[in-house]
C-alpha cells in the first residue's frame, strides 16, 4: 500500500504513520502476515528520523496490529487484529464522548452524525 505523510500537518508524523497502517489493514490493502519495511528502510524512504518510525511500530505492536520478529522483520499480525473486547469498547466510548459533545455544541443532529459514520464505514468496505 501507499503511505502518504504530510510534513506540514499538525498531527505528529508517528501518529500519521500509525493511523495509515491501521487504515491499510482495515481496507485489506495490508493482509495478515504481510511484511512491512524495516524501521531503517522505511525511515530512509520517508527521509525521517529512525525513532519516529520506531515509535509508530512499537505502538502498533503493543496494540496488536503488527509483530516485530527478530529474524522475519516486521509483519502485519498473521492471526488478524484481536476482536474488540470490553476494554476496547470502553476506550471507544471514551474517545467518542468529546467528539459527540463537540458535534452537539455545533448543532450536528444525531442522524447526520450516524450518517457520517455509515459513510466512513462504507469507504472502507468499497475499497476492500
Amino acid at each position, binding site marked *: *500500500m*501507499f*503511505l*502518504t*505523510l*504530510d*510534513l*506540514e*500537518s499538525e498531527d505528529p508524523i508517528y501518529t500519521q504513520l500509525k493511523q495509515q497502517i491501521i487504515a*491499510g489493514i482495515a481496507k485489506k490493502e*495490508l493482509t495478515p502476515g*504481510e*511484511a*512491512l*519495511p524495516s524501521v*531503517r*528502510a*522505511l*525511515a*530512509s*524512504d*520517508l*527521509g*525521517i*528520523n*529512525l525513532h519516529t518510525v520506531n515509535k509508530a511500530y512499537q505502538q502498533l505492536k503493543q496494540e496488536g496490529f503488527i509483530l516485530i520478529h527478530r529474524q522475519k522483520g516486521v509483519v502485519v499480525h498473521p492471526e488478524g487484529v484481536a476482536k474488540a473486547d470490553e476494554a476496547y469498547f470502553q476506550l471507544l466510548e471514551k474517545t467518542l464522548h468529546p467528539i459527540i459533545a463537540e458535534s452537539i455544541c455545533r448543532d450536528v443532529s444525531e442522524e447526520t452524525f450516524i450518517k457520517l459514520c455509515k459513510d466512513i464505514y462504507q469507504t472502507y468496505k468499497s475499497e476492500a
Partner: protein
Amino acid sequence: MMGLMFIFLTVLIPVYIMTMFIPYWTRKTESFGVTMPEDAYQQENVRQMRRRYALSTGVLSLLTTIGLLVMVPNYKEDDVVLGIVFACLVSAYMVVSFIIYLYFHAQMKKLKQLQPGWSQKAQLITVNTSFRKQKLTYSSLWYVIGFVIAIAMIVLSLVKYDAIPERFATQYDFAGNPSSWSDKSYSSVLMMPLMQVYMTGLFVLINVIIAKSKQQINAADAERSLQRNIIFRRRWSLFMIWMGNGLVALLSLPQLSLFYDINIKWSMWGIIGFSVLVVVASIVLSITTGQGGSKVKVGDASGGDASGLDRDDDEYWKLGIFYFNRNDPSIFIEKRFGIGWTNNWAHPVSWIFMIAVIGLAVLIPFLLS
C-alpha cells in the same frame, strides 16, 4: 590525430551532450536544483531557461574544442604535456559549466520566489510499503563473471610467470607504441588482475546502491511514478552488469598479451570500440529513461495531479546539488540535477564510503609499485 579523435569521441562528446541536456532529462518537478510543480515545467519562461542553458553550455563546448584543436598540435611530441594540457582544458570546462549552472540555479530560485503558488502546497511524502519486496535490480551474482575472469587472470599470470619478459610495456600511445615500462615482479604482473578485482567489487557496490537508494515517488501520481522508479533502477542495473563485466573481460587482453602473442592493436581497438558503445548506450538510456524513470511511459495519465508539489526539500539541497539532511537516515538518493544517484553528505557513512572507494583506487597501484 587518432588519439585525439578517440578522446574526443569517448570523453568530450558525451560530456558535452550530458552537460547540455541534463535539464531535459531530470524530473519535471526539479529544475536547476529547485523544486516546483510539474506543470510549471512547460511554462514558457522555464522552457526558455533550459534553452538558454543548453545554448550557453553548447558555446562553452565549442570553445573548449577550439582550444583543444589549437593547443594539441603544439605538444604532439610529448604525451605527458599533452595529458596535462587536456586535463587543464577539461577542468576549465567543468568549472565554467558549474558556474553557468549556478547562474541558472540562482535565476530559478528568484523565479520561484515570484511564484507563491509554487511553495504553498502541502509537503507530502509517499512511499509504497512493498517497494523493497520488488525486484529492483538484477542479481549481483552476475558479477561472478567478472570475478572469475579476474581470478583466472591471477592464476594464469602466476602459471605463465616465466614466459613474461623481464621488462614489459604497461602503457601504449595511440599509435600502439609502448610509452611506459615496468620491471617484472609479482606485484607488477598482478597489478592489472587486482585492478580487475577492485573494479568488479566496485560494480557490485553500485548494484547494491541502485537497490538500496531512497524510494522517491511523486505523491501526486503515486502508482505510475512507482513503476517508473522500478524500471529506472532495473535498466541501469542491467546496463552496469553488461558494462562492468565487458570492461573487466576486455582488460584481460593487455594482460594476456604479456605471455600470449596478441597484437596490442586488437586490444586497443577492442577497448576503444567498447567505450564508444558504452557511451552511446548510456546516452540512449538517459534519453529514454530520464532521471528516476521520468521519461518512461507507463499507464495512462489519468489520476495524476500535475499541479501538486512533492515535498519541497530545497533547504537540504545546498547549491541545488549537494544533499545535506541530518534527519534523513538514507545514504544514497537520486541526483537532483543529472542522472543517477548521489550521497546524503550529512550521513557519516557517505564519507567513509567515498574515502574507501577513492583510497583503494589510489592504494592498490601505490602498494604494488
